[in-house]
């Protein structure tokens, strides 16, 4: 899901950088209002967690590989705006230091993985939870928040890659950037996340959610609405 340099045309990555920039500015303003010294360690741990879980590449035997992101559980625990900032920091460091994701694609990657996933996961959790506090309902909400959040994020990546052949072609008609059309990119990315990586994300989200519900229930933003 980390789009490398050269896969997106400037017509795609410039607007997405602009979109991410708006979310970073609002996110930092929200943090300024609500973040307290006591919460800073959790913000750091959340970002570190996201960084580490992305290192666990999960293989599709004989095929590609993928990984969970952790943005869903971070959004549920610390709130979506905090998750946007935490995961964006991770993505920018991955691009700069480890060449994971392109420099030109930083805006796109932050939009897909940090912004979209955090908000989709958060709202899926809130909607499924509703007013209920039953453990099974909360667990279902946590699982689906990770599962749907990651899948939506992957579909956004697929759309951005899949429209490149339409946007830019060499004079001989060959694609200039990401080469595969939507008809290939969408089914591949959607299916591998629906069938495997999304499930892993959902399981990670529900396990951590249960841990925090048991040990630090007052920390959970999506339940208490008093967090960061």
């Amino acid at each position, binding site marked *: 899901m980390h789009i490398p340099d050269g896969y997106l045309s400037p017509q795609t990555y410039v607007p997405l950088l602009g979109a991410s920039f708006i979310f970073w500015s609002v996110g930092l303003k929200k943090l300024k209002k609500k973040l307290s*010294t006591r919460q800073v360690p959790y913000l750091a741990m959340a970002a570190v967690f996201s960084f580490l879980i992305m290192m666990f590449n*999960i293989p599709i035997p004989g095929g590609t590989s993928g990984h969970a992101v952790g943005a869903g559980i971070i959004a549920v625990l610390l709130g979506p705006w905090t998750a946007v900032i935490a995961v964006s920091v991770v993505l920018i460091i991955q691009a700069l*230091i480890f060449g994971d994701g392109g420099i030109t694609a930083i805006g796109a990657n932050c939009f897909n993985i940090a912004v979209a996933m955090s908000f989709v996961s958060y709202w899926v959790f809130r909607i499924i939870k509703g007013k209920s506090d039953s453990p099974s309902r909360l667990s279902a909400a946590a699982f689906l928040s990770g599962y749907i959040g990651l899948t939506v994020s992957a579909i956004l990546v697929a759309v951005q890659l899949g429209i490149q052949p339409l946007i830019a072609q060499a004079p001989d008609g060959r694609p200039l950037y990401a080469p595969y059309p939507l008809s290939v990119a969408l089914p591949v990315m959607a299916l591998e996340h629906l069938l495997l990586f999304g499930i892993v994300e959902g399981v990670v989200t529900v396990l951590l959610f249960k841990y925090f519900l048991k040990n630090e229930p007052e920390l959970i933003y999506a339940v208490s609405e008093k967090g960061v």
Partner: protein
Amino acid sequence: MRYQKRVSEMTKTQKRLWTGLVIMALLAPLGILLPALFHSGDAWGEWGTGTLEKLLGFVPEGLKKYADMWKAPAPDYNLGGEDASMTVQLISYIASGILGIAIITLVIYFISRFVVKNGK
């Protein structure tokens, strides 16, 4: 001194969580061992130019131009270069994890200094 004060102020849960994160970093090499074991390649849409050449028979012109514009200091979490042995790659992966933990923690504390109001 300030650091020590911070550590001593850590709650039990925080200590437990940091321990969990360090364990994750030590287990991270599974993330390159398992894909190697199951013969699975790069994530979809994250191929290098060499792989693209094999997949398509050509490398798109625009992509070629931008693909290597940034020289990351530790590309692919690997400190041993492209021909590094599996052992070097596994050790690099753990080292990258720890380096990542350090840089991310520093950056978050740096951002927080500007964001957190005093006395909160």
